[in-house]
């Protein structure tokens, strides 16, 4: 394949633009906090197949939330201000991708972080 020539002007502006200041955005802050918690976040990200309609930031929030407690879909929905259904979709997806585990207490299903 022929190598594409990029004009000098474009390369110069690209260099000037640089990258957004990291750790100013919530997603990165979350990642760092999770790393502090000892999570291998890159490995977790790799586990998430076919992200589709699932938001990575939301997934990280869930990991954070469930790292030290067990919650059901209702509670998760309330805390993250999303509907119970949407919370459920995330929890099921993350369970399927083997990030979370769950157990039943009565009829309610409680989720928690899987520590291997």
């Amino acid at each position, binding site marked *: 394949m022929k190598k594409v020539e990029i004009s000098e002007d474009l390369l110069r502006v690209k260099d000037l633009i640089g990258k*957004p200041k990291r750790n100013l955005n919530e*997603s990165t802050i979350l990642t760092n906090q999770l790393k502090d918690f000892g999570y291998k976040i890159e490995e977790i990200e790799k586990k998430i197949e076919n992200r589709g309609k699932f938001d990575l930031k939301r997934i990280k929030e869930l990991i954070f939330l469930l790292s030290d407690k067990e919650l059901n879909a209702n509670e998760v929905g309330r805390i993250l201000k999303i*509907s119970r259904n949407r919370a459920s979709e995330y929890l099921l997806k993350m369970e399927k991708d083997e990030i979370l585990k769950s157990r039943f207490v009565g009829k309610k299903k409680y989720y928690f972080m899987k520590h291997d």
Partner: protein
Amino acid sequence: MIRGILSGKGGVGKTTITVNLGIALHNLGENVVVLDGDLKNPNLSLHLGVFKYNLTLQDVVEKDISHISLLNALYVHETGLRFIPAHLSLNFLDTDASKLKSFLENSPYNVLIDSSPGLGKDSLSVLECCDEVFVVTEPYLPDITDCMKTLEVAKDRDVNVKGIILNKVRGKDYELGKEEIKACTNTNVIANLPFEENVLRSLKLKNPVINYKPLSKVSLGFNQLAADISDKEFVKPRFLPLKRAFSFIQNKSKSAKAN
């Protein structure tokens, strides 16, 4: 699925693309709604030909009443396209776009959002809502520069960037080429839409170009893009030159009769 149409620069064709891509997706059978997320300068309704609505996006977002949902501000265009318009009034200048996200979670539709340009608060709020985004640009240095900024910020926020939509392409030597843009931005150029007067005429007629001139190159471009992003096959109409000639003659005789 929430998709956003973003851009660095203004006037590059976001609203045009939102409307026409929306219609193309609708025609492919996708359950799609287009939403005017350019809250400071909402233009979607201008492209669709009706300017005033009883209830708009801002009414829903501002009132923040629990039983009121965006579906209350949903209208259907004569093409069948479902859309959620925003009010033109300056009274709504302060509507907080960051509230949008909560209204969109759980949407039964695939939503296509027309964003404001640049990296202001409103655009970032729209970005936060999206599962995937498209960044529109014209093939010139300032446009691509601003486009790169938007791309970087989107990627930084874990939003899936589906590609760049190159618009108003005239195929001139003073334009930056598709391959060069792709190589420099490390981003796929997912569509290459020509500059066409039909688009400008369609705006005057308040009839989206895909409806007004369905066989034009730009309209076929919208159909192709819609097929690509919804994993459907694009079937290019057969005997295109013949069909174009025929519709040209038909229009001629129509306008002769009208005179």
